[in-house]
């Protein structure tokens, strides 16, 4: 990517110290939360499809996956707050300018629906209400799977903010890949075609979109290739591609292939979130990701102003 070259040569800073503060979030909690939320949301969508196309095995496994994943994600979220006893303060206000506030409300709508539909399914009670809750969980699940992209992008963290246009689509496709993958691993093969398709389609979109972010030409995209983030994202691609190919070739005929490949796609999706998380962290540690693009922006503005002057 030639436009990047030579952009950082003349750049001053204060003893090379970072300008931004590094996110206080722990990778396991927040990247884990984002992965689990995506898995839960997309699993609920899959479950809603299964319940209306008479695939009881797929329906049950997807509903239980959703419930387990959303429970894990809430535990991670509460754990990440320095003062978990204050989690309730999150529901003190509803603030559209805060994706975390919006997310808390999305979660408090989604969580009970996902729980109710799973409980109704397992206990065999209230079938009608259980299905209605299943639809609700599917719809709110689509928000759970995507709002986390806004959560990250609505920060001053260069890698995250610079990717704000594409990140919701990266996360949505990655959520689909993980839910499809896990369902392909857990549900009966005979009912699993939609799950395998979701895993393969999600994986393809995940790869295409994340590569588009990596090649965006933004200086901060460098962090997606380097260091720990680079390793995580390369691993992610290997798992995702390997799993998707496995599902396409042997997902229908072999239980073992379906399980392993499905798990690989889900692992690729998890690695993707951890990779993006780490890349963002790295972009706050080096002041060049703040100074160089902002300088370029200023220069472009000045040039435009001079241009406008000479025109007049």
């Amino acid at each position, binding site marked *: 990517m030639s436009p990047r070259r030579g952009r950082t040569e003349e750049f*001053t*800073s*204060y*003893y090379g*110290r*970072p*300008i931004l*503060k590094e*996110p*206080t979030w722990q990778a396991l909690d927040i990247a884990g939360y984002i992965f689990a939320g995506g898995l839960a949301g*997309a699993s609920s*969508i899959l479950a809603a*499809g299964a319940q209306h196309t*008479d695939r009881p095995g797929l329906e049950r496994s997807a509903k239980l996956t959703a419930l387990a994943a959303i429970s894990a994600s809430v535990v991670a979220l509460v754990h*990440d*707050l*320095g*003062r978990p006893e*204050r*989690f309730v*303060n*999150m529901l*003190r*206000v509803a*603030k*559209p*300018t*805060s994706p*975390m*506030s919006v997310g808390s409300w999305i979660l408090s709508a989604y969580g009970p629906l996902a729980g109710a539909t799973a409980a109704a399914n397992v206990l065999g009670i209230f079938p009608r209400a259980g299905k209605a809750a299943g639809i609700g969980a*599917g719809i709110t699940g*689509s*928000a759970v*799977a*995507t709002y986390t*992209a*806004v959560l990250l*992008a*609505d*920060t*001053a963290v260069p890698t995250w*903010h610079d990717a*704000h*246009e*594409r990140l*919701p*689509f990266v*996360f*949505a*496709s990655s*959520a689909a890949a993980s839910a*499809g993958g896990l369902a392909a691993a857990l549900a009966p093969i005979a009912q699993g*075609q*939609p799950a395998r*398709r979701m895993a393969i*389609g*999600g994986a393809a979109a995940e790869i295409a979109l994340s590569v588009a972010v990596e090649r965006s030409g933004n200086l901060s995209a460098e962090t997606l290739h380097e260091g720990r983030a680079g390793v995580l994202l390369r691993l992610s691609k290997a798992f995702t591609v390997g799993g998707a190919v496995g599902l396409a070739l042997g997902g229908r005929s072999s239980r073992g292939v379906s399980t392993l490949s499905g798990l690989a796609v889900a692992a690729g999706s998890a690695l993707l979130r951890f990779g993006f998380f780490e890349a963002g962290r790295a972009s706050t540690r080096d002041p060049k990701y*703040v*100074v160089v693009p*902002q300088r370029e922006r200023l220069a472009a503005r000045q040039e435009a102003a001079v241009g406008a002057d000479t025109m007049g």
Partner: protein
Amino acid sequence: MSTTQLGMPTIGVPRKGFFTDTSLCIGCKACEVACKEWNQIPADTSLKLTGESFDNTSSLGADTWRHVAFIEQKVPATDPSAHDGVKWLMSSDVCKHCTHAACLDVCPTGALFRTEHGTVVVQQDVCNGCGYCVSACPYGVIDQRKEDGRVFKCTMCYDRLGAGEEPACAKACPTKSIQYGELDELRERADARLEELHERGEEGAQLYGRDPEDGVGGDGAFFLLLDEPETYGLPPDPIVTTRDLPAMWKRAAGAAASLLAGAALVFWGARK
């Protein structure tokens, strides 16, 4: 979103601010000390020496609400037989109390709020330590106190302002490098000072955070610098992240819809 200048009072007390004129700073750190004393901020007992001139605090943080930067620049001697000279740049940094404050926009609990003076303050009993504001601040000001979990930053001495006093740092500053007052008045004063310095041939002199049209709508605490902002560890052209939030929500809605549509597609004609 942030263009509503969240919580900015439109009537009542005029907006208060800081004008930090770094051309007057002598690097005495009286502001740092006065701030710590008045606000009872825990000491940093690590006693690390950074080797970065006289700066051992390094940056603003949860326990440093005023931070004095020291920059030593070589001035080449005009006479080839003489040694090069050294030029000192000193600057007391602080929370900018942004007009469009990202920290305040993203805070999910309402712990961060806009005071009647137009400043931005954390309500410590409401903060739940989520750390969102830390990643949102384009200046890297606000930070978490690790052992406590909550975040802390400059309050512009909210308690003193209420009592009609000026903030502790401004009071302690012996050279009037830190000036406190009504923002409109400070801006006029700063413009005049800039002109004066330019006339004296200080070409690098520039105002930072003065312009209400900039990416954060102007800072409630702005500066007169003698070099480029990044030299002092300041971002050259910060933009409040929430400016793009409406666009981000639209993209997320699009992504959610695609996810639902894609899921419908995978069931289309699927074998059982």
